[in-house]
């Protein structure tokens, strides 16, 4: 097993065993400068090593467009954990690639399939799953006035308020500020009975 992973893209890490034994220590090399990290032991020596009839599968490709963060690297205690970690990393890379292309539906489908197959999701995958999975749509018996008057005010006063955040209600500005925080404080102080439109005039 001379090399566990090979580079397939711009930022794909490469695991290079620094000793003759593949389970460690390893150096994770990234295409991005300054990302190199030494990990003392990535794999525990499997109990079945050197026993006859045992083969080891290697993972050749590791698709990912982003450098991995350190938290994504774990130091497993068992060979099974190592394989689980590898599988999670590969899946995370694939999911990130899909999300990078805006393929939210496909990414969610992969996560759902992974869960359905009985595999526990790693922490970052679980976070992504929680984020993407929530898609509820609820009707609310709330209406607002057409904001035509506010839009007219904004267009009319564009140049005078350029660069500012404004809160407009009807045909007047109830507050303005150079930052949103400043504006929100001013609006809260006014204790308005109706909600203004908040707009950043850039």
């Amino acid at each position, binding site marked *: 097993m001379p090399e566990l992973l090979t580079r397939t893209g711009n930022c794909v890490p490469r695991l290079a065993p620094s000793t003759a034994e593949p389970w460690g220590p390893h150096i994770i090399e990234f295409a991005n400068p300054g990302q190199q990290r030494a990990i003392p032991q990535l794999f525990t020596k499997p109990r079945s090593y050197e026993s006859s009839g045992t083969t080891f599968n290697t993972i050749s490709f590791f698709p990912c*467009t*982003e450098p991995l*963060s350190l*938290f994504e690297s774990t130091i497993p205690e068992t060979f099974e954990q190592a394989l689980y970690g590898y599988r999670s990393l590969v899946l995370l890379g694939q999911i*990130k690639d899909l*999300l*990078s292309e*805006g*393929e*939210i*539906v496909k990414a969610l489908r992969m996560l759902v399939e992974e869960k359905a197959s009985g595999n526990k999701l790693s922490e*970052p995958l679980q*976070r*992504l799953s*929680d*984020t*993407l999975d*929530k*898609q*509820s*749509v*609820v*009707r*609310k*018996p*709330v*209406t*607002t*006035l*057409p*904001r*035509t008057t506010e*839009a007219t005010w*904004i*267009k009319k006063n564009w140049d005078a308020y350029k660069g500012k*955040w404004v*809160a407009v209600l009807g045909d007047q500005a109830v507050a303005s500020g150079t*930052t*949103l*925080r400043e504006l*929100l404080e001013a*609006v*809260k102080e006014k204790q*308005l009975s109706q*909600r*203004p*439109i*908040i*707009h*950043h*005039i*850039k």
Partner: protein
Amino acid sequence: MLTDNGQKFTTGLCRYQDDLAENQSTPSKLFIPIRIGDLPGDLWAMVDTGAPYCIFEAEVLEALGYRFDPALTIPLSTRLGQIRGTPHNITLTVLANEGDSLAIESTFLVPETMPHAWKGNFIGYAGCLQRFCFAVDPSKNFFHFGKYPDT
């Protein structure tokens, strides 16, 4: 409200603004009124069927308490160059002038930094618009919307 084969297709409508674009050389964009988080006012956000995620101005997301998380980043190519952001689930409400408003759990990308030229708030397709029915009536500047019929 609109129907489709006798079933409700939309249950609310709002008047959209189509000339709020900062760069007036690119008019005819759809800005609809929305409510998000506990902001004491409503916002306009642009309907952007070409964008996957909802991306709002950094100050808005910051005021709502959503942060970029370097531990979970997604690179995304935009019209203004590549940005890196963290996906978050945020509920935004499309406000109705008639009928019912619609609260939609949406997928936002909270960017690490915004390109300097970034302007406005954008509602993306896969992250939000795909989750409900909508139709546009440009003769009246009406944006019709509704929940998918229960199946």
